[in-house]
């Protein structure tokens, strides 16, 4: 029995050490800070856009009224797990005041000011709008909600932030490497893998992806089309190849994105797929949000070097792991 227990104990110890290294080894904040900057900007932009036609989305004469939204989010057994402060606010004046006050936390999150306080407030706003505006949302809002959630764990205020600038001015030391940065990044990374894995699984259920015609039906969708690529019908093999490449990339993303040898081709494919969606199918904000999510896989040292190249000097330490 002891001949079995010893290697088993060793394996469990290694597993435990690997788990701790993966989730909790302190890392540099540059990548997460960049994701915060870009993701925060997208959250702010989304909130601003709702504000352009607020009375159409919220209030007593909204496209989807509060009662309708409540009904749509109620399951057949009567249960409703959604929550939103907007269930309780009907006055257009109060809706407007609360909406525009929301600009403050979104700007603060984006620029990295007191993010420990403002990140949860941004999350409350984001989830409240998600739950209230059922039927009026799409992929962008889901990615926004994901990023807003994980920014509460850490928004990397140590670099590229107002907080870092203020601390430097006051001569306060900044603890650069942080385990919470690692936790937040890992959560975003794992969530991206889940998104792509289930996206790939659902594509498996469609004949269009297996026979290579899916790409055609995407570019030939007049209601989404922002760039006419229907001339690709002359190049069937190319269209089929793109369909297959997209399907296999998405399906195997959770495997290929982790090793450094396959990470860069995987991320490059992500930029091409989401860039293509943005250009050809009109979903610019969704394409950008997904690219921001993929940014979580860029090593902090690479991000720091990129920032230095574009003239933004930041503090940094030696990278412990990718």
């Amino acid at each position: 029995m002891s001949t079995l227990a010893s290697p088993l104990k060793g394996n469990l110890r290694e597993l435990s050490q690997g788990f701790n290294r993966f989730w909790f080894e302190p890392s540099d904040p540059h990548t997460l800070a960049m994701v915060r900057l870009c993701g925060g900007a997208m959250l702010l932009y989304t909130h601003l856009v709702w504000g352009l036609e607020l009375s159409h989305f919220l209030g007593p004469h909204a496209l989807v009224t509060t009662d309708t939204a409540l009904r749509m989010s109620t399951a057949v057994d009567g249960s409703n797990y959604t929550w939103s402060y907007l269930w309780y606010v009907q006055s257009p004046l109060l809706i407007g005041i609360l909406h525009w006050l929301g600009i403050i936390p979104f700007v603060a999150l984006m620029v990295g000011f007191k993010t420990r306080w403002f990140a949860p407030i941004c999350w409350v706003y984001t989830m409240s709008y998600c739950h209230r505006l059922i039927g009026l949302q799409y992929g962008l809002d889901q990615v926004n909600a994901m990023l807003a959630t994980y920014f509460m764990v850490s928004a990397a205020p140590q670099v590229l932030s107002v907080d870092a600038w203020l601390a430097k001015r006051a001569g306060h030391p900044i603890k650069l490497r942080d385990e919470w940065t690692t936790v937040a990044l890992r959560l975003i990374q794992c969530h991206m893998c889940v998104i792509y894995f289930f996206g790939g699984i659902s594509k498996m259920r469609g004949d269009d992806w297996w026979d290579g015609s899916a790409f055609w039906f995407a570019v030939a969708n007049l209601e989404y089309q922002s760039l006419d690529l229907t001339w690709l019908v002359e190049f069937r093999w190319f269209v089929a190849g793109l369909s297959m490449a997209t399907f296999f990339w998405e399906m195997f993303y959770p495997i290929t994105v982790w090793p450094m040898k396959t990470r860069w081709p995987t991320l490059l494919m992500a930029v091409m797929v989401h860039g293509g969606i943005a250009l050809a199918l009109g979903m610019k904000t969704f394409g950008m949000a997904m690219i921001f999510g993929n940014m979580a896989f860029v090593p902090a040292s690479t991000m720091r070097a990129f920032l230095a190249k574009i003239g933004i000097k930041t503090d940094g330490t030696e990278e412990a792991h990718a």
Partner: protein
Amino acid sequence: MWKHRRQQYEALKKSVADHLCDRHGAKHCTLTRVEHIQLSPDISKALNLRLDLPQTYRDLPEALTAPEVIKP
């Protein structure tokens, strides 16, 4: 389950109709669901890649028509 989903759909439809009436000062609003059928690459090519052919748009009925019962 289907009754629940139907009620949700009808509530949504009424909400959208009421919103449009309020926005345009109308007393009544009729909404029609339209399906745009996508053509295969071969057929699209034969039709000179026109994606907005009137024949590809179909109004969807609100009430399902029951199929004929085939009596033995």
